[in-house]
């Protein structure tokens, strides 16, 4: 088959994974202060369960919401709540946050209790535990996992795909997790398989990680490990389904419409960890990297740790920091300040210095589209990005909708290849925003 182990379109940006791929996951030093935003997943903001002056313990629930699509947040350190106030988050908006000063004792809350072994626990109990632990999709979409684990009855799920592609340049947190936390990963896959009632599970890994592929093939005997062609955005769930099962998710549909559930490796490992120890989601693996960062690392970081502390822990940079990304360079967001906290979706912190940015932006000026068609070639969801961008520039949202702007996965492949350096993704994002608001 011509398109075996890959999908149509896509690009191959420089991988830049060499800074951290050989470094195992380390525990980050305990932060003196954490800022935990009360809005960390898809859905509505939560209300705070603690007030200024309260003493909190590790694993204590500090924010919850009554809405169906939400996951609670917990504190990862013990100490005293010094403020509940709006703080800046990675998107540049002010979000109500709980600020906790550590007392260094790390006393564990009484609410943290391990769950019974997998054979004895019922499906409802697992979903409830996942919900209470505040587990969300750790690949970056931060969609509450308990909703994914309880699909509507009419949708029959027959395949589970575990996403270990990690197609974003620079990031190695999922790769290291597959090597360093194999027991939790295997256990998590078993649990997800039990909950969804599926027999067939796949794990997709890009072939630029041969060590992980060999290792998982040896260790996971009930899961089919698929080596995928190294191509961005291989880790997009729709691309992954197309590659592994050759099924296409319909326009506007979800993977469950074609009977597939996609979970990130980190999410699986977190589910296992929560069920084994009872500890809710209080930390995650973050790749802190950059060409001029002195000691790049894969760190297990408490949610709420400030970027400034992490960059300091990694030895700071040679030169001046100019741009810091939350996530990888393709889909990540440039953060507005270093005093923002790690949230549940932070997979990486990529630091760029003034020197690098100057080199990158030396001839970065926008020109008009020359109709070369490269964006159309690389678009993994078969859109015409240049045309969409044109209509978005003119403000014709109805035409954007007709051209299926809503199917855009915002991967950024079109902007990457654009010879005229147009901000195509941003224009399409703008169109999507306006379609949601204005077009019925």
């Amino acid at each position, binding site marked *: 088959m011509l398109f075996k182990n890959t999908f149509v379109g896509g690009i191959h940006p420089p991988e830049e994974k060499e800074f951290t791929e050989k470094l195992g996951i380390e525990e980050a030093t305990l932060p003196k202060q954490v800022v935990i935003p009360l809005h960390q997943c898809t859905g509505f903001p939560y209300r705070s369960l603690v007030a200024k002056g309260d003493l909190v313990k590790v694993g204590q629930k500090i924010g919850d919401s009554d809405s169906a699509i939400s996951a609670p947040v917990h504190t990862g350190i013990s100490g005293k709540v010094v403020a509940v106030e709006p703080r800046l988050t990675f998107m*540049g*908006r*002010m979000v109500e946050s709980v600020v906790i000063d550590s007392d260094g004792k790390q006393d564990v809350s009484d609410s943290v209790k391990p769950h019974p072994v997998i054979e004895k626990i019922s499906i409802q109990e697992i979903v409830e535990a996942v919900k209470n632990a505040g587990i969300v999709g750790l690949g970056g979409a931060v969609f509450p996992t308990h909703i994914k684990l309880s699909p509507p009855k009419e949708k029959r799920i027959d395949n589970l795909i575990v996403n270990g592609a990690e197609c974003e340049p620079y990031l190695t947190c999922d790769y290291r997790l597959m090597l360093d936390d194999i027991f939790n990963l295997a256990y998590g896959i078993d649990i997800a398989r039990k909950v969804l009632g599926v027999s067939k599970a796949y794990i997709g890994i890009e072939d630029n990680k041969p060590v992980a592929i060999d290792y998982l093939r040896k260790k996971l005997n009930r899961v089919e490990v698929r080596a995928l062609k190294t191509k961005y955005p291989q880790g997009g769930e729709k691309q992954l389904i197309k590659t592994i099962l050759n099924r296409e998710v319909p326009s506007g549909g979800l993977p469950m419409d074609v009977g597939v559930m996609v979970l990130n490796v980190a999410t699986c490992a977190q589910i296992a960890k929560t069920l084994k120890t009872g500890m809710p989601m209080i930390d995650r693996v973050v790749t802190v990297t950059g060409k001029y960062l002195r000691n790049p690392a894969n760190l297990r970081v408490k949610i709420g740790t400030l970027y400034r502390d992490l960059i300091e822990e990694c030895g700071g940079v040679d030169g001046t920091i100019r741009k810091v990304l939350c996530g990888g360079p393709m889909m990540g967001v440039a953060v*507005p300040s270093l005093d923002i906290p790690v949230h549940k979706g932070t997979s990486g912190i990529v630091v760029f210095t003034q020197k690098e940015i100057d080199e990158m932006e030396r001839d970065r000026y926008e020109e008009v589209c020359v109709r070369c068609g490269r964006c159309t070639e690389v678009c993994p969801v078969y859109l015409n990005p240049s045309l969409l961008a044109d209509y978005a520039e003119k403000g014709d949202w109805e035409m954007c909708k007709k051209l299926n702007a809503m199917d855009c996965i915002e991967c950024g492949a079109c902007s990457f290849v654009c010879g005229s350096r147009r901000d195509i993704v*941003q224009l399409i994002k*703008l169109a999507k925003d306006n379609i949601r608001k204005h077009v019925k």
Partner: protein
Amino acid sequence: MKTIIISILGLGVIGLVAGLILGYTNQKFYRKVDPRIEEIDEALPGANCGACGYPGCRGFSEAVVAGKADVKGCLLGGEQTTCKISKIMGIEANKKKEKIVAILKCGGGKEQSPSKFDYQGVQTCQAAQTIGGGFKACTYGCLGLGDCVIVCPVDCIKMDENGLPQVEYEKCIACGKCLKACPRTLFTLLPISTKYHVNCSSKDKGAIARKACKIACIGCGICVKKCPSEAITMKDFLAKINPKKCTKSGKCIKACPTKCIIQM
């Protein structure tokens, strides 16, 4: 020869029959078109700017004759056109209406309110607003990328060096397009005789507003106390002057500690 006669006769008969049918239908289905529509259409500027809210000048003339639109509806034509239209319609236009203009309710340019972060994306206010809620330190203030300049049909808005749009009040026809284009809805329509207005839209608390912009309204309420005619009200840490009640005493301008109330 015979062929020619037959064809002439044949054509003549067809022509006669067709003529009769056309004549009959013209009588039977005659629809009277008001000649005034044509006349008003002539009198209008013909720019089809759409500021009146109708699809072009023709649409407006039809609406005027149908009695749906006011004779003063054409904003671009102004007083002259109104006179012509009222003459055609045979009605006396009301007394001279006061000119209304669009006013920007923000004084925080690049100098007063710095950027939170460098923005390098699409250079329109609407796009900038979606990235982290806008790059400006003040979340209510003008982003200064000029969406209003682009939509203005009479080119009366220009960007100044401080990154704030300046409205030429003489040219402004109060069409309201800038009100809709601004993602932070910073424009408002006020009569040109309004002497004082609050040059700020920040609804933040005093300390936050002051940090974000040097000349923000901090909601201190001094102007409310000083105003002799109770024209100023305070809502969401933002003063508002009611132009109907304002007696133009000028006490608010002197009292305002951040100088956010200005004279037009």
